[in-house]
């Protein structure tokens, strides 16, 4: 009987342990007392490519769809490019001081740690804002930046370019 009773207590103990662990996570508790993850603010840009609520719920679907298009068909639009996520959401830091995805200060990890969902993107992909390809140079008339940033010979004003960047890039 004693053993059975202690078994019944197990879920309660686990719940208590879980709550204790959750309270150790640095969170921004709202007025209602519900803990929330500390999501770093975007480094640049005012609005994501889609409404924030949609991105929070569906970003993995958009990324998965885009990854197959890029890999197999060579479609390299910027809108759902993983590098674009990192360019806006992860600050560019000097060598040795980068915030890596192993840290909860990394934009992706902040939520994923909170939700208890493992990310496997960064086993292969860089978790840092994009860098330029070593042989890219301005002599060829191309801007410095990663190859996806194609604005060669543009006659657009800075304002128009900004709008394109926010609106999802050159189609």
């Amino acid at each position: 009987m004693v053993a059975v009773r202690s078994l019944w207590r197990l879920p309660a103990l686990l719940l208590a342990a879980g709550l204790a662990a959750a309270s150790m996570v640095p969170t921004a508790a709202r007025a209602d007392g519900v803990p929330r993850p500390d999501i770093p603010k975007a480094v640049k840009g005012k609005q994501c490519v889609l409404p924030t609520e949609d991105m929070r719920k569906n970003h993995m679907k958009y990324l998965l769809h885009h990854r197959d298009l890029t890999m197999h068909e060579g479609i390299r639009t910027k809108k759902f490019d993983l590098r674009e996520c990192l360019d806006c959401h992860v600050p560019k830091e000097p060598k040795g001081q980068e915030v890596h995805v192993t840290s909860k200060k990394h934009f992706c990890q902040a939520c994923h740690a909170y939700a208890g969902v493992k990310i496997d993107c960064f086993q292969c992909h860089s978790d840092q804002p994009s860098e330029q390809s070593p042989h890219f140079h301005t002599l060829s008339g191309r801007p410095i930046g990663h190859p996806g940033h194609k604005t060669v010979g543009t006659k657009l004003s800075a304002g128009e370019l900004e709008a394109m960047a926010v609106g999802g890039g050159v189609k």
Partner: protein
Amino acid sequence: MSEDQNNNTDLARRRFMGGLAAAAAGTAVAPGIVLVATAEAKPAGQAVTSKVRWGMLIDTTKCADGCDACVRACNEENGLTQHDDPLRDAQWIRKVEVKNPDTGYSHSFPVMCQHCAEPPCADVCPTGASFKRADGIVLVDKHICIGCRYCMMACPYKARSFVHEPLHDQKSYMPRGMGTVESCTFCVHRVDNGETTACVEACDRDGHKALVFGDLKDPNSEIAQRLAAYGGTQIRKDLGLNPGVHYKGI
């Protein structure tokens, strides 16, 4: 004016215009530096098509013994030298030295993924991770590669590498990870942007100009014209794989 004269005038005019176009295609900006217009990049949102077949011509008579500029450029571009140890780092391109023992004649040339029209790696891949893109570039979709290395055994060119150890600080445009097979991508991230490959750029920079990259299906491309005029050899042509990499002088 007779019809004959008319035709001659037209021909002369056409030649003159052709000369102008050729002059415009390569613009000298300074002595020794010439800007050459490369193929127009496809729009980013457009899928690649089989109207293009990317290929490379390697002129082994121009490839210098002991020069490894292409190999270094590839390593740097794709971030392959993480361990700084050739025994552990991936190898996408290598210099091969060949010598005829009878005559003593030797020369060297680079060998990389030959981007076969009938890639055996893709044939044997159990998951579909090894595949050929519509424009002829053979790639590994590392999202679905299980690291079985069957493709490495199937490749007659020994062109592929397996990543044995965890990697970090990958290039943002070239994702690479442990447990997957990889090989030369023809610098697909550059090609999709209208650029040429890193190895070709390095060879040109060093003044050898032994490598030509371009569209085999475009009769006006430099590679197609040179192949048409001077011919070329494919390594192990007998296998019937129709590689996209052609060699001259072997």
